[in-house]
């Protein structure tokens, strides 16, 4: 299976990082060429968690395939489901009721916060600080509890269905979300105290893994990775879906291009998500939470593409339909895949510690990359 990896022709040391490595967060396998501690080449070997979700979806109906997508980027499962539901709605021309749109957006933003919280903890752990992980999980658990109450599951909710959402929100939902906002506002400054302001952390992050705007666009990076290099690419602003055009929020952009810029983007994005939720939570309109749809969904012949902004960037769903009950071909343009491809450019010339730091700020979720 694996070739004998020792040194290459130039006498550089080659080292396997992963698939079981504490910093690769899953089963990413990087073959790194090292000159001393300096990285010369990073070559990702993927596929350890490849389940061929695209092939699986070809045999599932339009109602069924949505649940599989929760297993791609499991940290933003809601948003993945949202993208798929939206694509089916686009094909069927289903009008989603206002209540469902509000619920969807609130859920998306909660998911985004939960995802960023986990990223914050895991990235701090990569840099050797273990305590933040537990502190971030305290807030994340609250979100998971809210999800559990309304959707019935904590991680892979399968709450979005074509035409709306599966259940109406739980009666406690609004109260608990408001409680969470209070908790978040009380605790968020601790994050800065623990990590953001820390001189060691700043030295580890500043000037590390610098990406230019051209590089980022050429590599198709999206989300905080692209915005950290000053590229405006937030799908919520560029192609607003659901009620994102009705709420006020800023697209967070930093121009540093280094790891610290990407870090700041995510921290500020959490604040923006809170802002969106605050605007929506009291104004959820009455009405149906689901549009009336036929029992069997059949997309007309054609091609449909929808995109959403997940916590990691732009997720595109490309459905080719032959008019049947199952998609003929489905392609998920996952943000992690493009973000991973830039890793070599990012880490080249740096130290191993820099690779860990910049990989942490890419926020890779391996099932999202392998699909």
């Amino acid at each position, binding site marked *: 299976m694996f070739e004998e990896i020792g040194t290459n022709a130039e006498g550089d040391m080659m080292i396997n990082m992963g698939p079981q490595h504490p910093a690769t967060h899953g089963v990413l396998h990087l073959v790194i060429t090292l000159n001393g501690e300096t990285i010369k080449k990073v070559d990702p070997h993927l596929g350890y968690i490849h389940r061929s979700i695209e092939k699986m979806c070809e045999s599932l109906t339009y109602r069924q395939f949505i649940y599989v997508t929760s297993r791609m980027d499991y940290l933003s499962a809601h948003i993945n489901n949202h993208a798929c539901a939206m694509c089916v709605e686009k094909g069927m021309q289903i009008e989603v009721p206002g209540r469902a749109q509000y619920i969807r957006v609130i859920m998306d933003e909660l998911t985004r916060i939960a995802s960023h919280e986990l990223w914050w903890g895991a990235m701090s752990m990569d840099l050797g600080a273990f305590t933040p992980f537990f502190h971030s999980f305290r807030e994340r658990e609250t979100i998971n509890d809210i999800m559990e109450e309304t959707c019935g599951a904590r991680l892979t909710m399968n709450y979005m269905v074509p035409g709306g959402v599966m259940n109406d929100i739980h009666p406690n939902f609004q109260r608990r979300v408001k409680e969470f906002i209070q908790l978040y506002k009380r605790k968020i400054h601790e994050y800065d105290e623990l990590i953001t302001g820390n*001189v060691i952390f700043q030295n580890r992050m500043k000037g590390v893994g610098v990406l230019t705007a051209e590089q980022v666009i050429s590599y198709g990076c999206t989300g905080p990775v692209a915005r950290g290099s000053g590229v405006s690419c937030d799908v919520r602003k560029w192609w607003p879906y659901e009620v994102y055009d009705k709420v006020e929020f800023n697209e967070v952009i930093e121009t540093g291009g280094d790891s610290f810029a990407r870090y700041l983007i995510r921290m500020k994005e959490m604040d923006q998500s809170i802002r969106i939720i605050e605007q929506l939570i009291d104004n959820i309109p009455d009405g149906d939470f689901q549009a009336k749809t036929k029992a069997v969904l059949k997309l007309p012949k054609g091609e449909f593409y929808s995109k959403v902004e997940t916590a990691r960037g732009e997720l595109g769903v490309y459905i080719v339909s032959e008019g049947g009950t199952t998609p003929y071909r489905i392609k998920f343009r996952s943000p992690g895949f493009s973000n991973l491809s830039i890793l070599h450019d990012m880490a080249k010339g740096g130290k191993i510690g820099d690779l860990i730091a910049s990989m942490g700020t890419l926020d890779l979720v391996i099932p999202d990359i392998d699909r």
Partner: protein
Amino acid sequence: MFITKYIKDVFGALKSLGVGMKRTLYYFTHHKEIITEQYPDNRETMHLPERFKGEVVMPHDEKNEHRCTGCTACELACPNGTIKVVTKFEITPEGKKKKAIDKLVYHLELCTMCNLCIVACPSDAIKMAQTFEHSVYDRNELTKILNNPGSKIMDGVE
């Protein structure tokens, strides 16, 4: 000037470290903030929301009757082939043949708790139970038959 910047750097760095240490000392001394849940000791006090998707069950009433008509809507809705409906024909008192379920086989090991079968069921015969401790020593025990032995369909459910 170089020296002032140097000194400022050192003091700024020490201050930022001090701020972090103050925060951790706070948690070190404030044990009320501890969030550990001592599962499984807290089984009695643990609260699972009523919508929690644990496993699919078929509620029976005290007369050992269920609401399943054997329409296979759940089987069709399931993305994983988790549910298999085995039907039989019963002779009603009027002498007519009527379709009824023999067994509703449920493979917990294949189930992803996506809730699609519950949504699809026209007669509310199945629902999600709030259990989650599914570990068993033998994989075969995960294949369950949801209807009780000898149960029959409730009157008035079509």
